[in-house]
Structures are given as structure tokens and as C-alpha cells.
């Protein structure tokens, strides 16, 4: 079983978000970066569990600059066998998908796992793009994934429920909560991560069809209007007349 797990790096949710004065670039100074939770807690851990029970290997892949190597080493500490970094500062999800697909094309992976979305750009685009580049089936938002021989049984989150489906290897899936439980890397994992291979690969050229024009911060809330807890008729009146919410 050869599994590829795509990992991305995002600012921690508690980070303060700010941009350069022209709104073109994200200010990274003082920002704490983490592995995207869906990639780490669910996709990577499930991949390691499958490798532990079935044998094979787990490759963690990141498209990003050398500064991302701390995050990549963490993936090795959690249990990936080897890592690959495609050396670029990715301008878009289309770029990332193209890089992942061109790397995966010649490596014969049985399964490619991603997170359901990144918590910074909230695109949920990369997995579908990779699948189309490679002409593979794609199961998004998988909250449960079991393998029986060559066939996977997957639960996929849909609006207000789940869909249960089967698909044969190879395929691409994106992971949501439920697929696995978060693992904290132990000392042995951290030590062995230092010696596991981390290969750096050059990106393939790609022409983007989407251009980022400008980031802005949302308008500040006007401030909370407090309502007397004894007077819920007043709250209802405000919700109806002022907020037009009921």
C-alpha cells in the first residue's frame, strides 16, 4: 500500500491576520504556523494506521518554501516514512494541484489523501483538481475510510447526513473529522524524523488563470447591543424591526 498524503501549512486560528498596506500580501511576522488540522489529524493519521495494518509506505508531500520544513518534519514524526517538498511559494490552489499531480503521476500511489480544506484560504479545491489531472475517482469530505483488499468503503459527509460508497484503488479522498484521532508525536517519532528522507523537487511551470487582487479586513462589528434579560419582547422587537432576522 503506497499512500501519498498532501500536507499544507496554515496560520494557527488564533493568529492575528493582517496584510501589507496595498492589500497584496499576508503579513507573516509574528504568525504561528501549524500543519493544517484536517491534513494532520485525519489524513495523515489514517494513512499511518493503514500502513501499520497493511504494510507499505506513507509519503508526505508539501508544496512550499524551505521554511515549511518544520511542519514537514512533524509529519515524519507522526509517522510518515518519507517526505517530499516541491520547492515553490504557491500562488494558488491550481498551482498546488498541478505540482501534486505531476509528482504523483509516475509514482504509482494506491491512494492520495488530502484534508477537506485549508483553514486559511478555505478553498476545498486542490483534491478535486488533482483527481482530474490524474483521471482518478475523488471522494471529498470522507469521515470514515476502510479498506478490504482493493476496495475501500467510505463515508462521505453531505448536507444533513452521510453517503456510504465503495471505490476501488487507486483513488483520491479528502479527510474530514471522524476519519482518525489526532496523534501527538512521541520522542521516538521526533528522533527518527530527523533521519528520514526529505527530498526537494523543483516545480513544473504553470500558468494561473486567477489573480489575487486584494485582501481586506472585514468591517468591524458596530458593537453589541445589550438587552435586559427580563425583557425578551424587546429582543424579539429588535430582531424583527432592526435586524430583520425574524
Amino acid at each position, binding site marked *: 500500500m503506497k499512500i501519498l498524503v498532501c500536507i499544507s501549512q496554515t496560520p494557527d486560528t488564533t493568529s492575528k491576520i493582517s496584510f501589507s498596506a496595498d492589500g497584496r500580501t499576508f503579513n507573516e511576522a509574528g504568525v504561528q504556523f501549524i500543519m493544517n488540522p484536517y491534513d494532520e489529524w485525519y489524513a495523515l493519521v489514517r494513512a499511518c494506521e493503514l500502513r501499520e495494518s497493511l504494510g507499505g509506505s506513507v509519503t508526505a508531500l508539501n508544496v512550499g518554501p524551505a521554511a515549511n520544513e518544520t511542519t514537514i518534519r512533524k509529519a515524519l514524526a507522526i509517522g510518515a516514512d518519507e517526505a517530499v517538498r516541491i520547492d515553490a511559494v504557491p500562488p494558488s490552489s491550481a498551482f498546488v*494541484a498541478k505540482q501534486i499531480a505531476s509528482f504523483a503521476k509516475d509514482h504509482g500511489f494506491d491512494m492520495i489523501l488530502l484534508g477537506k480544506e485549508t483553514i486559511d484560504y478555505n478553498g476545498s479545491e486542490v483534491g478535486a483538481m488533482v483527481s*482530474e489531472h490524474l483521471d482518478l475517482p475523488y471522494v471529498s*469530505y470522507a469521515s470514515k475510510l476502510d479498506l478490504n483488499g482493493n476496495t475501500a468503503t467510505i463515508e462521505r459527509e453531505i448536507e444533513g447526513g452521510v453517503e456510504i460508497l465503495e471505490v476501488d484503488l487507486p*483513488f483520491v479522498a479528502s479527510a474530514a473529522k471522524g476519519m482518525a484521532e489526532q496523534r501527538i508525536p512521541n520522542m521516538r517519532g521526533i528522533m527518527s524524523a530527523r533521519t528520514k528522507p526529505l527530498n526537494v523537487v523543483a516545480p513544473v511551470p504553470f500558468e494561473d488563470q486567477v489573480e489575487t487582487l486584494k485582501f481586506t479586513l*472585514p468591517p468591524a*462589528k458596530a458593537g453589541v447591543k445589550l438587552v435586559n*434579560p427580563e425583557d425578551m419582547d424587546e429582543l*424579539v422587537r429588535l430582531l424583527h424591526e432592526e435586524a430583520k432576522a425574524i
Partner: protein
Amino acid sequence: MVLVFAESPRGQIKKTAFEAVTYGKKVADQLGTSCVAVVLGTNAANAGELGKYGASKVLQVADAALNDFDSQTYTAVLADVAKQQGAKVVVLCHTSTGKAIAGRLSVRLGAGLVSGVNSLPETGTFSVRKSVFSGKAIVDYSIKSDVKIVSLMGNAVRPDASGSPVSIENISVSVPAGRIRVKSVKTQEGTVPLPEAEIVVSAGRGMKEPTNWGIVEDLANTLGATTACSRPVADSGWRPHHEHVGQTGIAIRPNLYIAIGISGAIQHLAGVNNSKVIVVINKDAEAPFFKAADYGVVGDLFEVVPRLTEAIKKFKAAH
């Protein structure tokens, strides 16, 4: 021409698709062209309704192989329809279905994609806006390719049903064999799924015990709202997992979000701060949630919530 994929989960076209057609019609008006909706599969009884929301034509690929969802076959069919009809803009819904297709379609058509948009394009640059960093920032993207794809965030436009129904035109497109075998679909019947809900009543650890949820359900039923919860509540099994909203759960943007006994941790806010109106009920005046709220009630939820339910009943009886 603007092509809108009107999804029909379990045989029914729903609000998200009506929103997408309303949006598609506005984009078509901007571009001086028409808006055409396409429906896949044989069961979409109410497809003619799409005319009311602005579709000048409704096309249907009535092949039973499309009754189950497979992103690969759906993408192949939609790409063929888009080419056949000469679509310049393709509009999808930012739903579980739309998200699984959007990226594929953009690769297949060589078209730029922006997913989860919440604004109409600027004419000229075709720049569209979306919310990023879990609601902490907004970004404008411009799509440069000849064909453009957007997926529309739920609750971003109000469906406008001022037009008239149209008849459905069957078109034939070859449907490749799918590789995904859908075995079953389990849904909670009778409630509006959280991502589609206009009003959400949500409760947290301040409820103390799972047996106390009756007052939350009464309030939700009175408002016709869907219930949600904070993560620790779902993690400890007090409420089902599908109710968990926030960074690690579902992200929602209803018109009205009522948070009861929830402190308002940043990871919780990440999933709800795009709600149009936020009401917070908490006994602690210092709870961080009040900073993100439009209306706040500082008080004991066990007294305030039943009182609010009564006030709403009174209001509903009078209106």
C-alpha cells in the same frame, strides 16, 4: 451564456440551487446574455421552477446513471454541456457536491475557478469576492480565462422567484461509466441541514447536562431553526457530531445565529462569524462571544431561553 448547475440531491432541487440560478441570472444580465440551468439525472420533479429564478432554459440530462453522485462522471457531463452550449461562466453551489466538482471542472475546461464566492463579479475585471482565514479576511480574485467558474456560498444571495416557470428540454450527452458505487445515503429527515439553515440555535457547555436541551429545542422549533452545538458538547456525546460547528466542525452563515452558553472561543467563532446577525446569551458579561455579537443578553440561560421562546410565540401569534 451563463450555465448554472442546479443540483438535485435526492431528487429535489433545493434552496441552494435557487440561489445559484438567481445569482447566475444577475451575472447574465451584467454580461448581456442569458442564464441557462442544467439538471442531471432523471429525478428532478421541480426543475421547471428554476425558470422562476431566472433560467431562460432548463436543460436536463435524464440518464439514470446520474442519479447517484460521482464527481468524475458529473464533471465529464457538465464539461460537455458547457462546451456544447458555449458557456462563458459556469456557476456551481458551494456544497458537498459543488466542491467535489468545481476543481475538476476547472482543470477539464482550463478555466479559472474561485470557490465559495459571496459577491457578484465586477464587470470588466470579473473580480469576485470571498471570505478567507475563517472569516477574518476578505479577498478579491480576478478570473482571467475565457471561461470562468465560480461556486456560490450558501445564503449569499436571496433567491428571487419573480419570473415564471419554463419547460424542460432534454439534451443528450454521453455519460461515462462511473467508478464510485453509492451504497446508501443516510440523512436526518425533517430538519433543514445546518449549511442551509436560515436560523440556527446553538448551545454549549453552559447547558450543564445533555438532559437540559429541551429548552434549546423548544426555542429552535418555535423559530423553525436548526440546532447546533460547540465542540466539547459534541465530543462528550451530549449532542450528535453533525451539530458541531466551528473550525473543526461545520462552517455556517445563517441569517440569525443564537448562541446559548457558549464562551465564543476563536475556534468556535471561525465557523459562525459569517452569520448575518448574532445573538449571544451568556451569564458572564466578559465572555468573548459578546465582542462578536450584534445583540447580547447577560443572564442565566435557564431563565432567559424559555422567556425568549415565549416572546417569540407571542410575536408569531400577532404576525
